[in-house]
Structure formats: C-alpha cells, structure tokens
C-alpha cells in the first residue's frame, strides 16, 4: 500500500476519516513529544502539550491552507503549547558565545590546519560502521544545548526550511544560522571521534 502524503491525510481528516488521524499520530506523535520535551521538564507535561496540539489540529484542520508543510504547522502549534505549559519554567536559551566549531589546538599560529581533517570512511560500504555512526549522531544531538538541538532537529531531521524554523521557534534568520552552525559542528566533532578527526 502506498504511503499517504500529509496533504492526503489532511484531506481525509477533514472528511472525518479516523484512520487518517491514526496515521498522523503514528507519523508525528514521537517527534512532537521530543520537541515538547525541549520546553518542559517532565514527560507528562510534554504529553499534555502534544495532546493539546492534536486538539488544535482537529479544531484547525479546516483552516489549514497547506502553504507551508503540515509538519511546520504541527511543530509551531506544539512549540506554542509546550511554551505555555512551561509557563516560564524554562525559556529558549539565548545564542550565547558558544565554543569554536573546531578545537583551536588543531590550528597553527598562522590559523592554518596543524592537524588537518581526515578523510572519513565510506559508510555506504559498511553497515556496522554506519549503525555505530548513527548512534553517535543521535547521542550527540541529545547532548546539544536546547536551542541548538531544536534547530538541528527541525532543519536536518525534519527537513524544514530555515524560514519555517524561524517561524516555528520565533528566532531571527541570523540566530537560526548560528545555532545550526554550532549544532552541526558539535555533531561533526562527535562523529570525528569515530570516523576520523
């Protein structure tokens, strides 16, 4: 059976198709909970925020115009709900000064590479190595500061555009880029421990 697109599911949901709702839940529940967890400290509050999100989806599905992808809308609703659940408990941390993308000790006094990057092994040829690399990626993302984790997840895992991420998180394009840069750089460093510095 062909996998339905989000827009097809939205159309069926509008027509009152329960199965379409079940498929959307299957597709997005875990991702929404992961997102909500960035804002609230306990798992129950995250579940509540996501339940509110689904309610908002049911209420708002008739008005959804499909100009942005469904997931951008879902994530935005979820972030808003999670933020109000957090009720000032935690806020999106500011960009801050952050650490350099690469350990400064790897550059000489002329700011050129002293220990240059190595060529990473080809993961396509090695399924075990690829699985280990994916574990590293997952762990590295979990260790990122909240705001970087949000941006890397929304941009690279969920595939939103930079503009969509800015709208979902209410951050400027420049901030979004800085957070993406720090986040990706940190994940690269974690992978470098395994695949070559």
């Amino acid at each position: 059976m062909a996998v339905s697109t989000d827009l097809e599911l939205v159309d069926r949901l509008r027509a009152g198709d329960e199965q379409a709702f079940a498929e959307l839940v299957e597709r997005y529940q875990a991702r929404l909970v992961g997102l909500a967890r960035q804002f609230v400290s306990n798992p129950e509050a995250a579940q509540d925020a996501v339940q509110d999100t689904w309610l908002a989806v049911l209420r708002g599905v008739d008005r959804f115009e499909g100009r942005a992808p469904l997931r951008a809308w879902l994530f935005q609703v979820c972030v808003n709900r999670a933020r109000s659940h957090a009720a000032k408990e935690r806020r999106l941390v500011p960009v801050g000064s952050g650490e350099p993308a690469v350990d400064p000790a790897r550059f000489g006094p002329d700011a050129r590479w002293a220990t240059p990057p190595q060529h990473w092994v080809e993961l396509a040829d090695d399924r075990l190595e690829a699985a280990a690399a994916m574990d590293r990626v997952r762990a590295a993302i979990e260790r990122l500061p909240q705001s970087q984790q949000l941006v890397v997840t929304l941009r690279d895992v969920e595939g939103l555009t930079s503009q969509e991420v800015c709208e979902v998180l209410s951050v400027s394009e420049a901030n979004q880029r800085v957070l993406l840069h720090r986040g990706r750089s940190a994940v690269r460093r974690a992978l470098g421990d395994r695949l070559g510095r």
Partner: protein
Amino acid sequence: MRGFGRNRALTCREVVELVTDYMEGALSAKQSARFEQHLAFCDPCIEYLGQIRTTVALVQQLAPAPVDQEIKDKLLELYRTWQQPPP
C-alpha cells in the same frame, strides 16, 4: 562577516566558522568568492566541508521512535470524543 578582515585571504580557522553561512547561501557574493578562493587552494578545508556535508546527511537519516499503542489508543479516544456532536 563577523570581524573577518576584508581584503586578505581567509584562514582555515575562519573558513570552518563560515561553513554554515556558505552552505546556507548567507554570504554576500564577495564573501562567497573569498570562501571559494580559499577552498581552491586548501585540500584540508575541502575535506572539512565534506565532513560537515556527511554529518548533515547522517542527521537527515535519523528515524523517529515508534509510538506506544497505549498512547495511540488514548489519542483515538480523543478523536472520537471530538467527532461526537455536542449534546
């Protein structure tokens, strides 16, 4: 371009901090040209850009975890309540 000298060639250390701006198309034409000029003569920085691209490609492959049946049931219950016309 955050305090990087305007006319001299970029250093490797500057290049690694500009990688994301470059990939995002956020550099001006002039800045972008300086970035590419550096890459043209610096194999290690090309390798670094390759590592970042591989990193992004791996992150893009992360799959979300499956959902508990219990939670699915609870949400379907929510849906059915929602579907019912008000009394």
